[in-house]
């Protein structure tokens, strides 16, 4: 398949790259822009490991065509670090609470949590669990993730 020029805006920067017109947003990010923080798990919208923000809303990058990513603002886990290079409070809280083990689901969990806290700065545990229901973690059992997100929410509010 001939490659075509595609442009997109990711983490505040405009990118132009050669891409397969059949690429998903996930492939565009990982294969063309080398932004490999976003992971592919199931590839069909069930596991949430490819969660990114499109115009601020959490979506599965595996179910977005690269063509759809033209003219929107994409945020990946690489785009969360504070301007000094420090970690986002959600990232720090996951470390502090042991909310990550093998780490494969972690970028997706982080993006779902960031989307939640932007619209709901003080979520209940039930709201946190609902927000990450589309993110499968086979290691942690979720308890430490929920505690970490609640703690990050408190940190951001303070």
């Amino acid at each position, binding site marked *: *398949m001939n490659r075509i020029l595609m442009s997109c805006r990711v983490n505040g920067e405009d990118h132009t790259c050669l891409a397969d*017109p*059949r690429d*998903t947003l996930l492939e565009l990010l990982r294969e063309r822009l080398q932004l490999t923080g976003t992971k592919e798990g199931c*590839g*069909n*919208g*069930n596991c*949430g490991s490819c*969660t990114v923000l*499109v115009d601020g*809303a*959490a*979506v*599965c990058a*595996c*179910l*977005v*065509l690269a*063509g*759809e990513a*033209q003219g929107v603002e994409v945020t990946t886990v690489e785009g969360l670090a504070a301007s000094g290079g420090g970690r986002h409070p959600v990232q720090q809280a996951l470390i502090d609470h042991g909310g990550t083990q093998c780490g494969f689901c972690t970028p997706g969990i982080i993006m*779902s949590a960031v*989307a*939640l806290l932007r619209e709901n700065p003080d979520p209940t545990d039930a709201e946190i669990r*609902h*927000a990450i*229901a*589309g*993110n499968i973690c086979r290691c942690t059992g979720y308890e430490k993730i929920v505690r970490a997100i609640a703690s990050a929410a408190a940190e951001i509010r303070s």
Partner: protein
Amino acid sequence: MNPYTYQKVTSLDAAVMARGAADCFVLAGGTDLIAQMKAGHRRPSTIIDVKTIPEMTAVSAAPDGSLEIGAAVSATSLAGDDRIRARHPALHDAVQLIGSRQIQNRATLGGNVCNAAPSADAVPPLIVDTATARILGPGGMRTMPLEDLFAGPGRTHLAPSEILVSLVLPSPAARSASAYLRFTPRREMDIAIVGAAARLTLGPDHRIVEARIALASVAPTPIRAPSAEAKLAGHPITAGIIADAATAAQSDAAPISDTRASADYRRELIAVLVRRALFRCAARIGVDVPQ
């Protein structure tokens, strides 16, 4: 995925023009279509992205109180729309049950309809709310009651050259409410073993003026439950009449046994969910029906 041409269309005219191409698929949220393309079940030669067509992305109210919902409006948008919450609570229930937050942010009402899954959560609420489908083709716009749109699992009566533009929901009567309930083994991220929507309209004497009941996952298409509705119409609302309707709904369905549940289990669930949905309608109207 097979090679295809991706085209963003920004007007209904352009969409209908493009729709004439062979093996053209309409892309809205893509949560079903892209997964089906990856699995090789759909092989489009052209994909037209309708997410920037104004008529397909708005929820607009007419002077008569009816709401027209663009087919490409997302589940998340509908969940946050106070008009949907107030007038069409069953639909409001359903759009919060479809998939995860990630899916709800993309998945659209028209996509849920056109994917034509027997388990589509948004469809029974639309049927009990007497939704009309507005369908655009080369010959112009036509309308059809939504409940007549479905031909079988994954199949509708839309012609290949047609596009579902919007769904029109008439304004509900006073003292009327709807509710949607489903049963899934997992609370989140699961597909209904049975789904049940109900709409009740009561008179001033608590007599049932109209009852509409629709079911998901119990037949090749979403269905009405006419014998259950007939048990209710004209009677004062009581726990007894609700139980009779719930039992009658079982005979309206033709459930199958599959990997998710047996037909017998589905029949049990139909009675349970229809009963609970009817009680929830009454509660939403503000009428306490002693159980």
